[in-house]
């Protein structure tokens, strides 16, 4: 009878030890895995951001003018056409990745590096740029401007 009670205690203790060992292991994994991910993070090629709220107000952008803004780590350009419409594009020239600008005297987007010209739809119209600028969507709500990837 005494022997049976002893065996029963042994089985219970083994079970408790197993639970304890497993939970210690799980705890270690839960601590070390985030640490390893912190030390060796996955490669991120570019900002996964799909949109940005600008610090500019719609009224800050006068007709026939443009402003550069930050889209992740890349420059974007928001312009207001002479007709009053807001449009946004990537400000990275498709030729050699210079930052483009708006030229009020020309009435369109221009790259100073090699005299590349883009119309108000971002289409390359003169100079060496081989492709149009990437166009973004522009939404305004009150005093806020939200620019997003199409």
């Amino acid at each position, binding site marked *: 009878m005494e022997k049976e009670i002893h065996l029963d205690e042994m089985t219970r203790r083994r079970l408790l030890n197993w639970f*304890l060992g497993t939970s*210690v292991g799980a*705890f*270690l994994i839960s*601590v*070390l895995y985030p*640490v390893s991910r*912190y*030390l060796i*993070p996955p*490669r*991120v090629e570019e*900002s996964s951001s799909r949109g940005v709220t600008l610090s500019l107000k719609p009224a800050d952008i006068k007709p026939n003018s443009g402003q550069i803004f*930050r889209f*992740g*780590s*890349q*420059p974007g350009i928001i312009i207001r056409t002479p007709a009053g419409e807001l449009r946004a594009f990537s400000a*990275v020239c498709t030729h*050699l*990745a*210079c*930052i483009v600008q708006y030229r009020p005297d020309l009435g369109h987007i221009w790259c*100073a*590096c*090699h*005299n590349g010209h883009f119309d108000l739809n971002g289409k*390359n119209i*003169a*100079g*060496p740029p*081989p*492709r149009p600028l990437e166009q973004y969507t522009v939404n305004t709500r009150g005093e806020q401007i939200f620019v997003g990837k199409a």
Partner: protein
Amino acid sequence: MASATVGGLILLLLMGWTLQAGAQEAGGSCVACHKNFGEDRLGKPVQEFSSDIHFARGFGCISCHGGDAQDPGMTAMDPAKGYIGKPKGEQIVRVCGRCHADARFMRQYNPSLRVDQVTEYYTSVHGQRLKERADSKVATCASCHAAHSIRPPSDPRSTVHPLRVAETCGGCHANADYMAPYKIPTDQLSKYRKSVHWRLLSAKGDLSAPTCNDCHGNHGAAPPGISWVGNVCGQCHAQNADLFNTSFHAKVFVQLGIPGCATCHGNHDVSETRDDMLGLGDGAVCAGCHSNDDKGGQTAAAMRQLIDSLRGEYEKTAEILRRAEHAGMPVNQALFDLNEAKTALVKARAAIHAFSVDAVKKEVAPGLAVAQKAYARGIRALEELQFRRRGLAVSVAIILAVIAGIVLKIRQIERRGRSP
């Protein structure tokens, strides 16, 4: 007998009507006969013509060859009916020009199409040799546009589509035997296919990249003159051409009888520019004329040093910011600012065409300032990263020590429980 004669007459009339109707449906008696020749020299034009834009617009064989397409017999090809057979040499230009040089006529089909091709052609080397020397080997309209499968240049199957122009010109110009009497090089096509222009056109699909006709002209094809080759390159590379044209090099090159852009960049095999083309080191094109002892050589070396300093600073900063970004540090603003240094580097590389140290310095200085500021931010981000890592190591060590202590305590309790 009479009924047989009438029957025969009706049969003959029916046969005649059938032949005529068939000829009309298939594009005239020309097609009705020539289609039976299969793929040989007489049958091939009929097969090819079905894909020709002129066929699609309703033109038939007689529009160019003359004759009578309603006549089912050999008399369709009677010179008295305007039949000219296969046009040759100047006759080809005349036949095409009859419509293509007529603005009123062309307006019905394509109002925006130019009508000066014939005029231009006679200013080309091809046209001049044809007119002045009756050279039958030179290219005429059909040599480049194909005779019976003419398609608009925008059609990828067209022989004058941007991707196929080089091959079309090379059909003669890369043929050493054919070009032998003219004593001009025949390596233009093989050189062009090594150029950055061809790579952009063929590999990147950039149809705005130049092919033969963009520099030589198409109908007025001729080699660019030494004094105006820069204007040709300047059609696309306007900034560089403007800087070059205002530099003293522009005048000196003309005096020396050497072309502008091509002297340093080559012509058909123009390659992607590299910084080591500048200066006096290995691969430097300036070293072809200049040395350390002359002012030009010193200017080239100074410009190279400026470009190198900005490129070095830019690359060093980009690398450190990439490392910081990869480690999860917020360096978006610094990366954003670094775009200005990249822009300055590209502008400085263009500014070398002014051949002035000050012009290059003007672009390099702000770029260096931006790159150095961004570099300092990158260094701070990496220092912050090291600080966080040290903090993490301490926290992990404490956690592990606590775990070890708990385990030891449990074992101690167990040992006490087992002891009698």
